[in-house]
């Protein structure tokens, strides 16, 4: 046999994974990386390269302060979320059984709930006739409604509310893995409880804190919907500025430059804080995390950044360590005041869930305007929703786009995840690429896709929307399925092959059933991602038919119509159904 043949045959198995990953990589490259490149070229005025737009951005009045304000807002939200979220995660981690599941649901349901719904909820809560003002008047703090809505306070309240789960979930997932026996061990060495917490527990949860902070900061500086809806005119953030440049000022070059500035800040932040997210430290954290240590760096890096994964994991791992948990449960560091911590946790969870409840109540209001509590009950807003063809059309379009993009993302994503799992090298290079669509600030994605899709005639088409949403869907599926595959024992596949099973049969009968949970979880996230997505849709939706979130967003901005409360209530069903679906597959798997 010739040497050439030999090298070729040696290489083929290594090429196999690359071939499986190719469709997803090509897709992300074509529909995301190229537009991003386009955006960059636009920002430097290609082909006559100049930094004019950047100079304009940094020198012309108004832009720099917005940038500074955006970064400060990002930091503030991150710090607030950490301060609120860490004790909450700690309290949940301390709890066991049904109580814990309920507490978790109170974090995860808001996390999965549409951003628009939650933003709308705060409009309802903070308005002049809203719950907050009514309460303040009731207890005599003030005699007239105070202006809260459309101030930066409202923007911050809304942002913190929306970001809190992104902080809690990664921290919780790391806390979950911390060996509970370490604390009694520390105490046995004469360490008082609070010191044991500071010296042992806190350092071990740093990876969780870090990934929570990165997530929140990145999302916060790219935040668009919530500050735009709740904040005042004087607190415009960079994302809003970019949107205005594109949609009103038609200054795409400047928007591109601003988007790149935002991207660079994100990248710097990732570089500084994300670089070594899961090195030696995570090795210390229990079995769950250790299991992944063999996989590529890219995977570990990405893994620690993604709240959905944490959510899926936190939901899943419950049964195993239950007895262990109860063994050490009565051992909180803050032993002097466990009651205080729990009260705090309940307040926090109330903060998370209350807005949705208020929206739910409002949706049955018989009043013609937003006022809490409603003076009577009626079904009028549901009637309005179901009889208005524009709402129904929007719903139909959303479902259609979400279904197709989920299917596409599933196909591409599962193959890619399978391929990356085979090859750590591939994983190192491709995982970051496949995940950028959900790491890059959403407003940047919006501008980039807008620029790219204009050239291809995809603006205002279903195809454009589907492609855009498939990008994020691929990211979610790749990350969740990869995590599942990391827990999958590849030797089982080998065993099947040794029993004369064709590789495809082995995949279908052994691998697929065993990673099914991950695929379904990934598909649910991909569906919700598409179904809720509004920023990119607004950019590339053009004058085409609107999706449900697009129509809601328009209505929220223009007329605060209680029909939205009815829509929101219906949308609350989505995460609930998603969780039920997840539970069912999990039960079947057990």
């Amino acid at each position, binding site marked *: *046999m010739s040497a050439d043949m*030999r090298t070729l*045959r*040696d290489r083929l198995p290594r090429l196999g994974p690359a071939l499986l990953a190719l469709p997803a990589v090509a897709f992300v490259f074509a529909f995301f990386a190229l537009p991003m490149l386009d955006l960059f070229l636009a920002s430097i005025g290609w082909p006559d390269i100049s930094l004019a737009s950047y100079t304009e951005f940094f020198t012309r009045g108004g832009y720099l302060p917005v940038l500074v304000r955006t970064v400060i807002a990002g930091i503030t939200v991150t710090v607030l979320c950490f301060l609120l979220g860490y004790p909450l995660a700690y309290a949940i981690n301390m709890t066991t059984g049904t109580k814990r599941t309920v507490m978790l649901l109170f974090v995860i349901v808001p996390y999965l709930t549409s951003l628009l719904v939650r933003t709308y909820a705060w409009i309802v809560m903070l308005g002049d006739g809203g719950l907050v003002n009514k309460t303040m008047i009731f207890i005599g703090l003030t005699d007239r409604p105070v202006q809260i809505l459309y101030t930066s306070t409202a923007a911050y309240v809304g942002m913190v509310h929306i970001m809190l789960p992104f902080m809690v979930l990664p921290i919780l997932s790391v806390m979950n893995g911390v060996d509970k026996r370490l604390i009694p061990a520390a105490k046995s060495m004469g360490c008082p409880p609070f010191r044991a917490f500071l010296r042992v527990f806190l350092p071990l949860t740093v990876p969780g804190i870090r990934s929570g902070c990165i997530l929140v900061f990145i999302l916060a500086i790219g935040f668009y919907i919530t500050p735009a809806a709740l904040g005042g005119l004087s607190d415009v953030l960079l994302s809003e500025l970019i949107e205005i440049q594109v949609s009103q000022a038609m200054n795409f070059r400047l928007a591109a430059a601003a988007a790149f500035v935002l991207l660079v800040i994100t990248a710097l932040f990732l570089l500084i804080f994300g670089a070594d997210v899961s090195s030696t430290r995570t090795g210390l954290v229990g079995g769950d995390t250790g299991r992944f240590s063999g996989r590529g760096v890219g995977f570990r890096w990405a893994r620690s950044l993604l709240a959905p994964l944490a959510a899926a994991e936190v939901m899943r791992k419950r049964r195993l360590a239950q007895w262990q948990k109860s063994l050490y449960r009565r051992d909180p560091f803050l032993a002097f005041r466990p009651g205080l911590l729990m009260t705090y946790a309940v307040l926090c969870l109330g903060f998370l869930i209350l807005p949705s409840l208020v929206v739910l109540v409002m949706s049955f209001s018989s009043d013609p305007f937003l006022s809490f509590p409603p003076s009577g009950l009626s079904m009028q807003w549901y009637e309005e929703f179901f009889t208005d063809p524009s709402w129904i059309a929007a719903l139909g379009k959303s479902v259609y786009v979400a279904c197709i993009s989920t299917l596409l993302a599933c196909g591409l994503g599962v193959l890619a995840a399978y391929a990356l799992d085979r090859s750590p090298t591939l994983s190192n290079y491709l995982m970051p690429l496949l995940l950028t669509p959900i790491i890059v600030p959403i407003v940047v994605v919006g501008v980039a896709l807008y620029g790219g899709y204009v050239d291809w005639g995809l603006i205002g088409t279903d195809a454009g929307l589907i492609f855009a949403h498939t990008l994020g869907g691929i990211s979610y599926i790749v990350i969740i399925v990869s995590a599942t595959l990391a827990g999958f*024992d590849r*030797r*089982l596949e*080998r*065993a*099947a*092959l*040794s*029993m*004369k*099973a*064709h*590789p495809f*049969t*082995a995949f279908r*009968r*052994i691998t697929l*059933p*065993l990673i099914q949970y991950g695929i379904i979880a990934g598909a649910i996230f991909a569906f919700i991602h598409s179904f809720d997505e509004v920023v990119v849709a607004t950019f590339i939706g053009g004058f085409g038919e609107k999706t449900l979130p697009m129509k809601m967003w328009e209505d929220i901005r223009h007329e605060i119509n209680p029909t939205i409360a009815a829509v929101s209530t219906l949308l609350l069903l989505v995460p609930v159904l998603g969780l039920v679906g997840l539970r069912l597959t999990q039960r079947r*798997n057990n």
Partner: protein
Amino acid sequence: MEQDIVALTSKAERSAVQTMRGTAVEFRQISKSYGSFEALKDFDLTIRPGEFLTLLGPSGSGKTTTLMLLAGFEFPTSGRVMIGGQDVSKVPSWRRDQGIVFQSYSLFPHMTIKENLAFPLETRGIARKEIALRTQEALRMVKLEQFQERFPGQLSGGQQQRVALARALVADPPLLLMDEPLGALDKNLREEMQIEIKHIQERLRLTVLYVTHDQEEALTMSDRIVVMNEGKIQQVGAPVELYERPRTRFVAEFFGDVNIFLGSVEASEFRADDESFTIPVCTGAPEGSACGAVRPEKIEMHKWGERPAMNDSVEIGGEVVDVIYLGQMSRYTVRTAGQDVVIKCMAAPRTRHFLVGDAVLLSWQADSFVLLEQGATT
């Protein structure tokens, strides 16, 4: 054993016994590299039909690699793998016909025991009725009928191991590969399973390639043992041969305690470098520096002054410096004029119990002394 034979009632199994013979396996001039690292070099080995052959060697010596080549999960860089006279060097695993028991058992966690056993039959396109029949037989063979509806996670380690064995055998493959199948079991269970596996192999006359790094296991189960080191075969032979007549120092030392003496051969006589003894060796032995080995249990030990019971070829005086009680045996270290010598004696009546400081006389017979090959020593 009798029970097992009684269990052989069905037609399928009886016909299996009558017609099935394990296949022959041949490795021809195999080498296998991972990148620039050569995991196997000049590997030549024939496994006879129906033979129980064990690969034995330290960690990283290439045992699993050899097994993977035969299983079709890895392919040789050069050389050929032949099964039943056919070149299968490039045939992937799923087109070969063999049963494999993996160290981790690799039972499919989402299938019941019965479904696990049915899997290899389904992939061979066997009719449903016969599948039911044969899974029942296999279950009976490993005495696990009552567990068939359970999932692997609900069985003990030993039971899982049995299921893995039954699953590897249910499709009547002519070749069975096992990679440290008993590694995860405790000592008693391991011994029990060793006997069970051996019985099944003898009954079905399977060709078995077995991997272990436990020399005792290799000695009790194998027809022949292949000792490997650093990707090379050190010696192939029956257990007795390897234990009693190791060819190299590596093999001698691999099977437990051994006393190694450095010296030289001159005129069919081995002379220890420390001048403590000379011993006749076979006439063909090459002259020059050499080394030889004596197993500790082949050495007789007497109180100084007592006459040796037999007329042994070598007698050395010394002093006991260490005694370790091992249960059945005691292990003594005796300091002689030359090197320290290790001796193992059966725990004997009180009178013959030696203490540290006792002056003793050591003796052994000429045929207990094995002259080792030079060069391949480590």
